[in-house]
């Protein structure tokens, strides 16, 4: 394997809140290499966004505690100086947020907002150069009549167009890594298809790596090569897309894929579901955080409720799973989920 672009090791993030300490992210490790698209899926509140924003050190400074490391092209983003982080934000790693309605500054024209992102990392660029670069980006992300629209304000654009502009801002410095946090969740399916196409074509151009956070397994299946499945702040499964959809290796992934799979295939039958609801991150259950909802926990024994399962390699597809079940059992059940 080539050396990775981003390597996150033992990331832990907790928030002090009036109700107690929220363990938002626990012991998360993963790598991303150049040109790769890594999908992160998981239930609401499972720590996807917090993991992503830790890489840019965007977590609130007042109540967050972050430990571990996130080495991006040789620099640990969690421990380097403020100036070093700032120099990398927007230039080496850029971010696209979920809601294009609120992600743009309503008081400045879109041209100025794209230009500003370029200028901060190219302080010597002349006004004309910046403008040229801005027009370039607007054309690239498919805004019609860029020479006219460059001086308009965000509210004059539709949701899909705004997300294109956010992408233009993210890509104006040709970053090595793009983190997209649910970039299409707020958009209609037809617009979602446009935005995903756009991201993929720009990725091909720049050999950029993408971390794509989504709760839509369809989106993951279509655009990612590798996937992290998160649950209760932990990675419970790490696999290639093909392996995940062919033979998932964690009971939560089984439930997730089962529910989606039955939506696609057996019409009108009962949907397979995961019973119960996600855990509170303040009083995480000891042992496997999925245990209270897991239909296999009782057959495995008390270890599920006492010991946190570690990620381990399962089978020959290169999947990693954090489950106490035996390899044979996992392989056997996993191969049947999508059948």
């Amino acid at each position, binding site marked *: 394997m080539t050396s990775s672009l981003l390597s996150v090791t033992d990331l832990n993030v907790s928030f002090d809140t009036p109700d107690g300490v929220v363990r938002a992210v626990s012991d998360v490790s993963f790598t991303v290499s150049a040109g790769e698209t890594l999908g992160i899926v998981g239930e609401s509140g499972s720590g996807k966004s917090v993991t992503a*924003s830790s890489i*840019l050190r*965007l977590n609130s400074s*007042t109540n967050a505690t972050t430990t571990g490391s996130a080495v991006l092209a040789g620099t640990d983003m969690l421990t380097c100086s403020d100036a070093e982080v*700032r*120099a*990398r*934000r*927007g*230039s080496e790693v*850029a*971010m696209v*947020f979920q*809601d294009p309605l*609120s*992600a*743009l*500054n*309503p*008081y*400045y*024209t879109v041209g100025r907002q794209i230009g*500003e*992102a370029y200028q*901060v*990392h190219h302080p010597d660029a002349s006004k004309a150069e910046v403008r040229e670069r801005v027009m370039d980006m607007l054309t690239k992300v498919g805004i019609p009549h860029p020479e006219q629209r460059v001086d*308009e*304000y965000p*509210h*004059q654009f539709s949701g899909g167009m705004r997300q294109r502009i*956010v992408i233009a*801002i993210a890509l104006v410095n040709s970053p090595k890594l793009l983190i997209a946090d649910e970039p299409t969740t707020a958009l209609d399916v037809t617009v979602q298809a446009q935005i995903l196409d756009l991201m993929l074509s720009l990725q091909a151009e720049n050999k950029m790596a993408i971390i794509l956070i989504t709760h839509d397994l369809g989106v993951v299946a279509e655009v990612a090569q590798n996937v992290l499945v998160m649950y209760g702040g932990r990675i419970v499964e790490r696999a290639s897309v093909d392996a995940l959809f062919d033979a998932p290796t964690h009971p939560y992934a089984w439930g997730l894929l089962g529910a989606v799979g039955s939506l696609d295939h057996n019409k009108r039958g009962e949907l397979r579901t995961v019973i119960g609801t996600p855990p509170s991150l303040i009083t995480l259950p000891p042992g496997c955080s999925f245990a209270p909802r897991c239909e296999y926990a009782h057959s495995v024994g008390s270890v599920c409720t006492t010991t946190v399962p570690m990620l381990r390699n399962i089978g020959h597809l290169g999947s990693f799973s954090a489950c106490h079940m035996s390899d044979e059992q996992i392989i056997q059940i996993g191969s049947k989920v999508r059948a």
Partner: protein
Amino acid sequence: MLVFITRRLLFAVGLLLAVSLFTYLLFSMLPADPAALTCGKNCKPDLIEANRVRLGYDKPVLEQYWLFLKGIFAGRTYGTGATAFTCPAPSLGYSFSQHECVTTMIANTFPVTAYLSIGAFVLWMLLGISLGSVAALKRGKWQDRLATTFSAVGVSLPTFYIGLLVLFTVVIWLGLMPFPHYESPFENIVGFFNALILPWLTLAVLSAASYTRLTRNGMLEAMNEDFVRLGIAKGLKRGVILRRYVLRSALVPIVTIAGLDFAALLGGAIITESVFSLPGMGRMSIRAVVESDLPVLVGTTMVAALFIVLANVVVDILYGVLDPRVRTKS
């Protein structure tokens, strides 16, 4: 934008007319007889009647109002022959108890009120916005607690209390300054500042208290906005983020309130002017109330209304300038 401004101005003129009519009708319904008030206690009935005719109080109310409106544009002459006298346009009436045209009285007192208001306004905006910003930036730290306490205490204290407190402490107790005595800035600039510094501070501290809170909350709210996070993710410097992203969006609502507060002050800072014996419009209004000097009351009310209406227009326009969403609504 031009259509927008025209529409606002037309509306403002209409509003002013309505306010003036309402004021006029309201004061004409008071049980006091304005003619009887024109001369002292033991006045002869025929003198009262003469004055009544001279000032036009014998006419129906609506006609009086019409004469009043006409006076604003054409000036107004009271009485006939040798005893006639004229208040030139814009005439807001004639105060018999002061034997002076109301317009002249306002022209004499307004500058004092204006100096007081402008100084206090500048001070309170500076103080409020900087304290609020510091509080927001140092959220939860001692600076924040100090600023929050200041604003909580400040908004709950009445003006006359703070005014008297300041006056007592600085002038009487500590003897740091002589008792303020107003002087025109063109004659004695030092005396002017000496007279106004305490009233400025009094007014500023009070309003700064609520502007501290407004700024703090506005900024904290803005800091949670997605677009601020995107600004940080771009790699912008903290100062740039605060200026262009956070403060900018926190200021928009503040401008609205500030404009109206300032206009209200221009109509006369009644309590402050009285406490510090400043010869401004506020103190003049108080005297007019006490002496039932109706023409002066109508005049000052009208001027105050004018400022409020104008301020509304200015705020609306500023809003358009500050917020492109208002300006370029399709």
